[in-house]
């Protein structure tokens, strides 16, 4: 083992395999190496209690942590055409999708929900990095359009948590075309005079950063999140020099004027409620964890739902 194995590999592995070892009651912090008890870590929203390092959090857990009493209603997302390009690399795209669905228990890389944050009603969309790297697919585009449409209908703000490596290559040009599609969703909110708040989480790069993730009225990022357009390796190869320490990290972007704030995950719910309430002329929020609203529409499921049946399962093309 050398320092690369010790330092880089666990970070990469943690993005993909963390949730697959439930019998393991202890998690090692990727940053400081402290052993953290799983319950304590979950209670702290996967933020290391020792060094404040923000570890990945699944989209559904994020929603539960944000909304009062963990209660929310999912906003349905229209299903796009499956595998429109009949894409195949070393593996068929339909097989990759099936694997990702089995592994995550989610339909695709974005969840949309409605609920209350500190008694402040809002629509929240969360990108799920564990689903094919959070990549921007037609489904993700549909989810953002659905989120904006619901926000406009209900006259509610939209909070979007981004996390993706970029557009989904397996959907080719149609993945790329989610840049204009999601930009239209943002315009719908602006025209309706509704706040659009983006929380950039680790990592957010490529076409995602270059569309809806950079168009928020308020731009917040989680500490140390990697945020950029081009990948650091590509840049180093292009310019032929090493990049400075902390390049493309949240704090670096804050320094360069690309963000409004860098905020700890622990404080996010309070901060979002505070900002939304001022932007929409509501009185100051009650802060801290609250029970579910009086008339909860539905308690968000604690476990991911059953993986839906594959309509295209028989397709062998």
């Amino acid at each position, binding site marked *: 083992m050398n320092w690369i194995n010790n330092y880089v590999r666990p970070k990469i592995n943690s993005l993909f395999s963390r949730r697959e070892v439930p019998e393991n009651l202890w998690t090692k912090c990727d940053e400081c190496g402290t052993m953290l008890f799983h319950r304590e870590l979950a209670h702290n929203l996967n933020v290391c209690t020792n060094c404040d390092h923000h570890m990945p959090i699944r989209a559904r857990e994020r929603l539960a942590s944000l909304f009062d009493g963990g209660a929310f209603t999912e906003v349905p997302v229209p299903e796009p055409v499956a595998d429109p390009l009949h894409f195949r690399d070393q593996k068929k795209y339909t097989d990759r999708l099936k694997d990702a669905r089995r592994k995550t228990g989610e339909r695709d890389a974005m969840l949309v929900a409605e609920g209350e944050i500190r008694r402040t009603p809002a629509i929240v969309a969360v990108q799920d990095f564990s689903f094919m790297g959070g990549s921007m697919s037609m489904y993700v585009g549909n989810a953002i359009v659905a989120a904006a449409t619901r926000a406009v209908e209900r006259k509610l703000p939209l909070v979007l948590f981004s996390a993706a490596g970029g557009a989904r290559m397996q959907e080719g040009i149609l993945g790329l075309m989610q840049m204009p599609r999601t930009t239209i969703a943002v315009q719908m909110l602006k025209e309706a005079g509704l706040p659009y708040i983006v929380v950039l989480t680790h990592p957010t790069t490529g076409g995602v950063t270059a569309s809806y993730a950079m168009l928020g009225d308020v731009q917040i990022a989680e500490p140390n999140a990697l945020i950029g357009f081009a990948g650091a390796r590509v*840049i180093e190869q292009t310019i032929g020099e090493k990049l400075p320490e902390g390049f493309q990290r949240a704090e670096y972007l804050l320094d360069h004027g690309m963000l409004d704030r860098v905020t700890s995950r622990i404080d996010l719910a309070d901060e979002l409620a505070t900002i939304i309430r001022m932007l929409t002329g509501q009185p100051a929020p009650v802060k801290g964890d609250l029970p579910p609203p009086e008339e909860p529409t539905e308690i968000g499921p604690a476990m991911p739902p059953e993986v839906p049946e594959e309509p295209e399962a028989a397709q062998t093309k």
Partner: protein
Amino acid sequence: MTQYLEFEKPIAEIEAKAEELRALAAGEEGTDVLKEASQLDAKAADLLKSLYADLSPWRKCLVARHPQRPHCKDYIDRLFTEYTPLAGDRNFADDHAVMGGLARLDDTPVMVIGHEKGNDTKSRIERNFGMARPEGYRKAIRLMDMADRFGLPVITLVDTPGAYPGKGAEERGQSEAIARSTEKCLDLGVPLISVVIGEGGSGGAVAFATANRVAMLEHSIYSVISPEGCASILWKDAEKMREAAEALRLTAQNLRELGICDKIVKEPLGGAHRDPAAAIDAVGKALKGMLSELGDSDAKALRDGRRRKYLDLGSKGLAA
């Protein structure tokens, strides 16, 4: 002198031979040698025709990137009059990878904006090979905004490998600049017409090409990622670019089927670089046609139409 692509080698050989024969027969009219030369010419033409009748996606990438392919500046010089370049983003710099300004198409004043790759080593470096920095997108935003206020149609010519991956570009907000440029495209109350004349490279292309009408030259490409980039990520081998080019469906013909491209502009036999004037004139004709289609629409109809086009995308996939 035409630069031949790898797959055009057989044509190059035949044409060279014909040339040799003609040199041999210099001054002697009507000899068998000349006859043979013209037979070779015919053979080369046939071969060219059959090669270009069915170009693979990867070969189309090579044609789209051909160093002698007409670029933005060639189009502006030939198609427009009174071209008046406008420079700078008013914040940081003028990006030479993006050119733009006021011009007349026939008599109609328009705003023309495009990526320029350059045509020799010096100009390629000056133009940064058509890879724009944030300043380029911000200049485009400024020009589009001006066009909107003065009621001028906007024409964008897309030809970029992608946005420039550089340290400064990141620090000055490459992502934000592209996002705002796309947003501005969608906001315009004037017609926005885009022509992909070579490479439509990812976000750098979207920032200009989110248009009411998108035309593509017959052998141009438009893709989420370069075939080489895709191959190195999904195949873990950059040499698999042929497979990647196939899988990405990046040709004008595929994009027409998917509804992203509205019109394919036919290229001269053997690609635009074999007869730049003809290719440019064909684009001019297509531009005028598309402009007149949109001529009577008001600002709201133009904005709504653009939105509809993009929101509806993906409702159908490619035929199996």
